[in-house]
């Protein structure tokens, strides 16, 4: 019986590829794919042939040769005798450092500005509006250069700290603000400091455990335990106690003016600060808009209902509004983080040694291996962007609406 409704099982004819709607679209897609593959092959082949004609070959052997140049900010061991590969690694770490710092700072700026822009205080909300409109409508490269120029022009040179009556003095004898960067005291890890560090880590675990316990108590008994002051206490008290019990193993290395520059302590270079600040404040303006949009996307009825249940405004924000707003905020936040990472390649404008400056700048220049270096750079940025996006998507999945 069923054979009546079956389509006619005619033999397949070649003309059906064009005439039969079942195959037609497949045919055209196959043709398009073929043309695309052929053109890529043709262009690639053309490139290789022309390179060969010009006597150039693709080779990554240069990565093993000594780089020959120095880098001012290195997170790993590096001298001018190290290889180009090592120089690239130094650049990669510097890129990751600035990207991480700027993402954290931009999020802080963005959330603060986004929430404040919705404030009932007219002045505060208008000020935040001005911040957002000014900072996101001027290119980030210009911000980087402006901030760097202001730093070098306004802050005193290390030379100004010299003499009996210096033009500039150090803050608390520990912090020096110069036009080459900010010098802060660095910790010196004496014997026994490991115990202090472990105590500190343990107290952080303790804070989380206590907070979890407080939530559990709240749900089980309805009793509200204080969390703020105990957390602060747990954060500081055990570590400081342990520090004195172990006989003060951690001391501070203060920066001192010696020779041309300050020595000792930790140096945060002017390029790092300028780039960090510019990227954060620029991207922060975009994040502020995302946050505002997210909060406004939560219907007013939600907070009114929460208010009717007797929740205070702080708890309404943290328990009702923000968890729902995050669903709207996070997807655009991912692309802002990607933007920060990619915009960090503007570092060369202020002489910050990121991967574009080392591998894509000096190495490329000194070896002349442009194609190889650019391919490596593309690979690096692609990998890092996809990783960030992957991690953020995992987080997004954890906060998005759970459908049951």
């Amino acid at each position, binding site marked *: 019986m069923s054979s009546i409704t079956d389509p006619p099982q005619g033999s397949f004819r070649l003309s059906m590829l064009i005439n039969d709607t079942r195959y037609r679209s497949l045919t055209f897609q196959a043709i398009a794919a073929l043309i*695309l593959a052929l*053109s*890529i092959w043709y*262009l*690639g082949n*053309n*490139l290789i042939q*022309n*390179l060969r*004609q*010009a*006597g*150039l070959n693709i080779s990554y052997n240069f990565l093993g040769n000594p780089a*020959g*140049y*120095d*880098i*001012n900010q290195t997170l790993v061991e590096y*001298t*001018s*005798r190290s290889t180009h590969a090592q120089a690239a690694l130094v650049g990669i770490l510097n890129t990751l450092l600035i990207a991480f710092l700027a993402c954290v700072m931009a999020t802080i700026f963005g959330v603060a500005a986004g929430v404040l822009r919705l404030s009932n205080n007219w002045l505060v909300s208008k000020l935040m509006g001005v911040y957002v409109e000014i900072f996101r409508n001027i290119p980030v490269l210009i911000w980087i250069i402006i901030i760097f*120029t202001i730093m*070098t*022009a306004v802050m005193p*040179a*290390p*030379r*100004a700290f010299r003499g009996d009556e210096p033009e500039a003095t150090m803050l608390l004898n520990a912090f020096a603000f110069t*036009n*080459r960067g900010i010098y802060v005291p660095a910790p010196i890890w004496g014997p026994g400091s490991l115990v202090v560090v472990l105590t500190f880590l343990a107290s952080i675990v303790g804070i989380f455990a206590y907070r979890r316990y407080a939530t559990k108590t709240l749900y089980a008994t309805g009793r509200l335990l204080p969390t703020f002051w105990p957390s602060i206490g747990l954060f500081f008290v055990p570590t400081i106690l342990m520090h004195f019990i172990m006989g003060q193993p951690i001391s501070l290395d203060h920066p001192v003016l*010696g*020779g*041309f*520059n300050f*020595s000792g302590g930790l140096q945060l270079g*002017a390029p790092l600060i300028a780039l960090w600040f510019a990227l954060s404040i620029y991207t922060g303006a975009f994040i502020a808009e995302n946050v505002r949009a997210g909060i406004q996307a939560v219907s007013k009825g939600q907070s009114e209902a929460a208010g009717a249940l007797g929740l205070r405004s702080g708890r309404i924000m943290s328990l009702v509004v923000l968890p729902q707003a995050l669903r709207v905020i996070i997807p655009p936040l991912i692309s802002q983080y990607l933007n920060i990472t990619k915009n960090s390649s503007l570092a*060369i*404008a202020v*002489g910050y*040694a990121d991967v574009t*400056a080392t591998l894509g*700048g*000096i190495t490329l*220049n*000194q*070896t*002349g291996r*442009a*194609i190889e270096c650019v391919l490596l750079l593309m690979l690096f940025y692609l990998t890092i962007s996809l990783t960030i996006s992957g991690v953020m998507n995992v987080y997004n999945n954890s906060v998005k609406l759970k459908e049951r």
Partner: protein
Amino acid sequence: MKKTAFYGALTVAGFAASMASAATLDDVKERGVLNCGVSTGLVGFASPNANGVWEGFDVGVCRAVAAAVLGDAEAVEFVPLTTKTRFTALSAGEVDMLSRNTTWTFSRDVDLKLEFTGINYYDGQGFMVPRDLGVSSAKELDGATVCIQTGTTTELNLADYFRSNNISYEPVPIETNAEAQQQYLAGACDVYTTDASALAATRASFEAPGDHIVLPEIVSKEPLGPLVRHGDSDWGDVVRWTLNALIAAEELGVTSANIEELAAAPTGNPEVNRLLGTEGELGAMLGLDANWAVMAISAGGNYAELFEKNIGENTPIGLARGLNAQWTDGGLLYSPPFR
């Protein structure tokens, strides 16, 4: 969209590579204008004057080549290039030649496939510091912050010099001479290092040049000269012999003042006659007019005139001839014979 961009990149790369092998001399003649890569602004060597007209020692070489090929010293399109972009621009055919205080090195010549057509300035790397720093030798620079133009031989020499003298420093990489000048004057670096000639030129443009000194150490050899792409020897010959003509003109006493008289009729000196085209076929061998060298020398004068007018002792830059004197005066300038 991504595919399109990829296509575009490949096409550009393909075109660039195929253009490189074309005959540059014919291209320049057909275009009627010479594309010459110069520095982004170094007083005395290449910088636009108050009227926006490029002038300087390196610019003079461009004009001489344009005059020799096209008969017009003004038919030059100047393309300002940073240290980072210069070689790519030349390899990609964006400029026909580079006259941009560029050091002749083995790897640039052999590995980057460039052709240096001679040396128009024998230079060496020096250091400039503010006078009130009280430094008298580069060896006292331990711990100093050094501004340096990135993508240059200076960057590598600097690392080698400080390493071999076992002193430390902090490099501040910078793109252009103008930025370096700004950083140095703001005190963001203690020392500015580059070729000694460029230091003199930079210092001359300061408000108070006397407050800054150039240290006596010269830490490297920096033979600067014009260069062209590898693989077009005919064009390389044109640039090489135009430069040689300027140098030979000084040696033979041919100046922009007496050249018309000397070129009007054969003189008693056969080499002058061959150079100026009143005897022999040298111009035709290059594929140029017989009076090519006359045009080149008339453009801005011979080597000595170019030197004195732009960077010599009577200019604010005030460079002595030193190594850049004729071999007959104890210098290194030595043009092969015109025959």
